[in-house]
Structures are given as C-alpha cells and as structure tokens.
C-alpha cells in the first residue's frame, strides 16, 4: 500500500467512531448540512451598508485604519494627474506595470520608463522599479481589501516586489463583503482559476519587534488605490 492509502485508511478507521459537534449540548453527534454554514456566514461578519456611498465610506475608513492611500476620483484624467503628482513627489524613475486598459493609459500619462511584466521580466529589473501599477478584480468594502489575481494584476510579483503598489480600480468593482468577493472568484474563475489569487489589505506590515507596527516588512511600503 502507498502512503495515500495508508493515511486514508487510518482516517476512515478513526472516523468509525462519531465525534460530537462543538456546542451541541446533548453531545449527540449530528450532521451539519453541507451548505448551511456557508449561508449563515454573511450574518456573522462586520456590517456593511447597502448603498455605494456607504460602502465607499467604509472602504475609506478601513483604508485610514490600514494606512492605505485611498482616492475616489471623478475621472481617469484626475487619477492620472494625481498619479503624476505622487511620481514627482516620490521621485519615481522607473515603474512596472502590466497590459490593461487603465494601466496602459496611466503608463502613457506618466511617461516614465516602464518594465512590463506580461511576457516575462528580469527580477532585478522589477525589484529596482519605484512603483508597480496594477488593475484588480475587486475592492472589498468590509475589510478595505483589494482582490488581485495573476491575470488581473500582471502576475505574482508585480503587486508585491516594488516598494509602492498602485491599484487602478473601477467604481463598479467595489463589492460589499468577503462572501461577495469569494462568490466573484467562483463565478469568474470557476474551472480555470489563475495560479494565484490574493486579497491584499493595506501595505505590507509587521509587529514582530515589540509588537510595534512597521510598514513595508517585505512587500510594498505604500499602497495607493484609485477608484475611478
């Protein structure tokens, strides 16, 4: 027998004796219905308003808490103008980006040397970039998170390696809560998921030294989100 069969047979042997469900006061084993738990999950999570305005406000409040720079802008041009101001203030010399409607326009507006990740790239070159520009799959109001995947954000490293991660999102990408985000993943990528999906919530952080918050432990020190 191989180890797969050994492990599975030990599990099946062990499971012949039923175990009580936690919180079942009678200690009688009972079955939990498959989808029952999933259906109740949204009720136990932090509340989110129903309208777009409430959700944007929640996203903004979470962003403040997380030290994310969140900017709701009226137009693309406004976002590019603000992006240029950030680039000038931080003295960006080179940026990294991927192919995309919003990112292409932003790259053109910035007029800086660019490292495109779409068709492969040199890691050291990407590492030396001042900022990484990506699009995303969704924004999650409940937690202030950005959902990115290898497909929507130019691979695995673009959103983690450069010291400043700039996300260009559309208003219609704002989702209320985490269950909505995972529902989107299931719907969008059902049988053909990207190899990485990630909920990014704020810039990289650590509290490993005396529980004092430091941003930019390994990933980006800054996270800027434009919602156009």
């Amino acid at each position, binding site marked *: 027998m191989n180890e797969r069969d050994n492990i599975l047979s030990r599990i099946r042997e062990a499971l012949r004796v039923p175990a009580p469900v936690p919180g079942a006061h009678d200690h009688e084993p009972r079955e939990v219905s498959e989808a029952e738990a999933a259906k109740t999950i949204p009720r136990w999570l932090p509340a989110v308003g129903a309208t777009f305005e409430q959700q944007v406000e929640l996203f903004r409040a979470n962003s403040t808490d997380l030290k994310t720079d969140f900017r709701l802008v009226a137009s693309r041009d406004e976002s590019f103008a603000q992006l240029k101001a950030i680039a000038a203030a931080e003295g960006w010399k080179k940026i990294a980006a991927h192919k995309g409607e919003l990112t292409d326009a932003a790259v053109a507006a910035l007029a800086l040397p660019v490292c495109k990740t779409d068709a492969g790239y040199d890691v050291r070159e990407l590492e030396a970039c001042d900022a990484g520009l990506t699009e995303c799959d969704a924004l999650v109001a409940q937690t202030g998170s950005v959902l990115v995947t290898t497909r929507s954000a*130019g691979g695995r490293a673009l959103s983690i390696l450069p010291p400043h991660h700039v996300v260009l999102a559309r208003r219609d990408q704002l989702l209320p809560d*985490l269950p909505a985000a995972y529902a989107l993943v299931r719907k969008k990528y059902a049988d053909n*998921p990207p*190899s990485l999906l*990630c909920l990014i919530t704020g810039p990289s952080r650590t509290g*490993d*030294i*005396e529980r004092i918050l430091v941003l930019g432990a*390994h990933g980006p020190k800054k996270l800027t989100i434009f919602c156009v």
Partner: protein
Amino acid sequence: MTTFAKQFKADAKRITRDLRHRGLILTALKKYEAARDARQTRFPDWQSARQTAAEIKWDAINHLDKYLVEFVTKIEARGTRVHWASTAEQAREIILATCRDRKARSVIKSKSMATEEIHLNDALEKAGFEVVESDLGEFIVQLRQEAPYHIVFPAMHLTRGEISDLFHNKLGTAPTDNPEELTMIARRWLRQKYIQADVGITGCNFAVADTGMVAITTNEGNGRLTASLPKTMITLVGIEKVIPRLEDLALLQPMLATIGAGQLISCYNSLYSGPRQPGEPDGPEEFHVVLMDNGRTRLMADAEQRDALHCIRCGSCLNVCPIYRNIGGHTYGTTYPGPVGSVITPHLRGLQEWKHLSAASSLCGACTASCPVKICLHHHLLQNRRNAARAKPVWWEKIAFNLFAFLFNSPWLYRLAKPLGRLGQIFHPLIKGTPLDPAYAWTQSRDLPKIPRQTFKEYWRSRR
C-alpha cells in the same frame, strides 16, 4: 518523572521568577488584547461566528477522507504534484528529494509551524542546503538558533536592543533602537535571498477542497514572495488543514486575524491553485504539496478529543493562558506551546512523556472561551490526565487516593482527623516550606489554608 517533565519544571521555576521576561510578555499581550477587543466588537455576533466556524471545521475533520481526496484531485488537475507522508521522516525525505532533484542550493521559507514540527531546517542544513526564514520573527529566532517563542509572534520575548545586537553580530549592521530600521535591515538582507533562492517552502493555513487551493495568510508579504520568485514551491500541509468550501474562508480568515493578531483581516490572504499556468508571466515551474499525517490520525481516532484537530493555529489560547503568560513559550519544549500544545503533544509525541503538560493548567477555561473554533481545551487537559493515569497508574497516587477515599468514607476517622489536623497545623510553621514538609510542593511558594476553629457541622449544632 521523565526528562521532559524535569526540564519543564526546572525551566518553569526559573522563568516565573524572571520579572523582566514577565514584563515583556505582558506588554506585548496587552497591546494584542486592546487590538483584538477593538476588532471583535465589529462582529455583530462573535459567539455565533464561533459556532459556525466550529461546525465548518467539524464537517471538514469528520469527513476528512472525502475532502482530502477532493482537494488532491482538484489541485493535481492544475499541474501540482501531491505527496503523502505518514511520518515526519517521510515528509522530510520528500522535501529533501525534491530540493535535490531541482539541484537547489538555497531555500527560502515563509512561516510554517508544520515545518517546525518536523525540524525541516536542521534536515535541510545537514543535507547542505542554505535555509533562510523570511518571516521577520522567524528570521530573528533562526539567527538566535532557537525555536519560535509563540506560534504567531515568534520573537515576542525579545527587545529591540537584543535584536539590534543580534543583527550587529550576525549581519554586521550598525546598532539601532528603531524598530523600523531593524525591519528594513531584515528587508534588505532577505530581498537578496529571495532573488537567489532556488526553492520556496511555505506552510498552509487552509486547504480548500472544492476548488483545490492552498490558502496562505501573512502580514509581511513573505509568503507571496516565497511563492513568486523561486522556480520551485513546496507547501507542507498538515492533513487537518482541509476545509470544505471556498466560501468558508470568508469567515475563517477574518476570525483568524481578529482573534490571532487583533486585525480585521491579515494583510495578504493568498490562494494558490497550482504552478505557473500557461499565459502567466511568473511563478514557480513546479508546485509540490506535501500532505502530512505525523500523528494526526492518532489524535483523530480519539473521538473525545478529535475537535483538537479543528485548531487553526491562531495562538489565542496561548495569549489568554495564565500558565503561558508565566512560563513563556520555550518552557513547554514542544513545537506547539500553550493550551493547544498541551492537548495535542501527548497524542503526537507520547502520552506518558508529555502528560506533565496537562497538569500545568489552572483549568480556568480561558483557552476554551477564546478558541474561535470551540475546541474544549481545558476538558481535554483533564481527559489527558485521566487517560495517562488509566494507562499507567502512579503507585503513590493510587495509595494517596485510596487513603483519601477511606478517610472521607469513614465518619469516625474524619472526626478524629479534624482535631489532629488542627494540632498539626500549630507545628507546621517549624517545617513549612522545607523539604521535610509533606505539603512541600504546595507550600514552597504558597500558604496552606488554615483549618477553621469550628467546622460547619459544629457551628450548625451550636445554633440548634
């Protein structure tokens, strides 16, 4: 007493008197408590959330064969190599063989308690690979050549001064007392390691069965980098990490972050479904998932304590435990310290050798109350005590309990014992706290309660 028990007692005695250590732990945990409480209040009904989380994990563990097979089928379909390991040795061998096959020289790791459990770093280093821990706390304790102090905050027991000295000695950097500068030293140093590494090794927080994905949670982004840059990625997964559905993450991830670290959700919650796919610009060419038993099915066979496998390693039972707060993480001598470690270690590494951990509890139940997946931790400590006594009774305990039963079942003897006890207590101060004292284990650091002048029975009689 076993060597482990002796070591435990000696270390516990030393460290409980170390006021500096206590100060450090309490400062760290007070910050944790404040952050946790602030986030927890944002959940409309934390208790119901716990119940649902517990039911999700119950479902997963009690149908583990089904969900494991589902997980493996799905993730293999995306080009992932899945390996099965019954023991720590097998898991180490699989990982070593994979590193050798890929002709690797250097390995970068993101935080993983499962790899601590199998002492992977030792094995890799002995086999000639360079191994670097990338989680800041783990990196610090690796430089100090010690085990993580806490499963979530590995370097909680160190001050910035100690870390600065450590970096100065090991990395040759200038001393600083600024945590940000210290973090940047590690960031710069580890960046180069990421770029050079041939293999990235990670742990796993949840293995999602119905989509075949590995979920990894980090705050620093070290997990993301470990899974992005090296050509080979290996993920070590304890078989109990499987959860049924993708949607379950919507509850488990925020609960893990809230109760574990006082964050609403951790910074990076990643899902990996396979190696680099066609059309993707980067990511590992090979993705290996090692599913490890290493004693978990033994714990599973004990239906009474099976819920200990629900553990999502949030560390909250450590944070609230009065024993952990006093003796610290290293005293346990186990991979998993704190209440959950005391419960599972006897199952993973031998009941008789590790039963002393179950006795090191005030049975206050703070761990059980805090557990986000409702593991009956303090009851399991009692059950471990019972099982240990049943399997191998201690002769003097048996005599003592027989005497106790005889005394309390014989009214005439009990009546006689009371005045004798009072008399004895008068002379007790002469030997109190010395090894001559029969109650030495108790009285060396505590007082014995005084036997009252009048018993309740006598009082009752006098009132009539």
